[in-house]
């Protein structure tokens, strides 16, 4: 019941926006003066708001030559959105509205759960102990370095 009414409300909002556009005959890509006024008053972040401007993290490739320009922002005036700050929440699916979680997302959740389960392990690794008996040496490209082989021999 509630859900359908909120959906109706949303579609009403959308039709309100399109109606307005039709009234103004506003077809350009930019905001009309009225829309600009609304944006400026209600949504635009200004210095007086005491909030930092939001930016997305740009992560360079550690192992490659980086072509992307990574702009340095001053930390005092910007807030970089973090994708790792709330990692302890991420070993379970978060609620969805209209878009389902993807396979990629479920893989992420599973690995976060696996990390959570291994967090307190000391020394021996449960994953390694479980998986290593299944290793067939013909499946892997055996390296020349002796140190790599010692990995198998040690267990």
């Amino acid at each position, binding site marked *: 019941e509630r859900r359908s009414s909120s959906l109706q409300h949303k579609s009403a909002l959308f039709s309100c926006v399109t109606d307005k556009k039709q009234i103004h005959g506003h077809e350009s890509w930019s905001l009309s003066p009225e829309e600009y006024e609304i944006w400026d008053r209600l949504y635009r972040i200004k210095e007086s708001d005491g909030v930092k401007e939001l930016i997305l993290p740009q992560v360079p490739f550690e192992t*490659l*030559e980086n072509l992307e320009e990574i702009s340095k922002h001053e930390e005092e005036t910007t807030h970089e959105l973090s994708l790792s700050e709330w990692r302890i929440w991420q070993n379970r699916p978060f609620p969805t509205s209209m878009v389902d979680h993807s396979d990629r997302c479920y*893989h992420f959740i599973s*690995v976060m759960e696996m990390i959570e389960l291994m967090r307190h392990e000391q020394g021996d*690794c449960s994953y*390694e102990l479980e998986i290593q008996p*299944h*290793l067939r040496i013909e499946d892997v490209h055996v390296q020349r370095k002796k140190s790599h082989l010692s*990995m*198998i021999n040690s267990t």
Partner: protein
Amino acid sequence: HRFGSFQRLKAAVHYTVGCLCQDVAENKEVQFSKQTIAAIAEITFRQCENFAKDLEMFARHAKRSTVTTEDVKLLARRSNSLLKYITQKSDELISSNMEQKEKK
């Protein structure tokens, strides 16, 4: 039986990830815990599923049933640096294949 072949594949990925991490550890003079290597191995294993599904869809989108290097390049489209690296490797492979054919 399917579970067994999954475990076998995971073991091969885990072994190879271990070797690669050891190279990085020596280069950067850091150490990886066994749990970190296990996590990277599991991420790599699962990432193969993402890649495989995307490659199949990209090929199908181009009305092909055979995955080509063009599909692989699409996997790297989000980063210019990565795309450049993969494209270079692809070009190197093509030219070395041509050389081998000429020898024959």
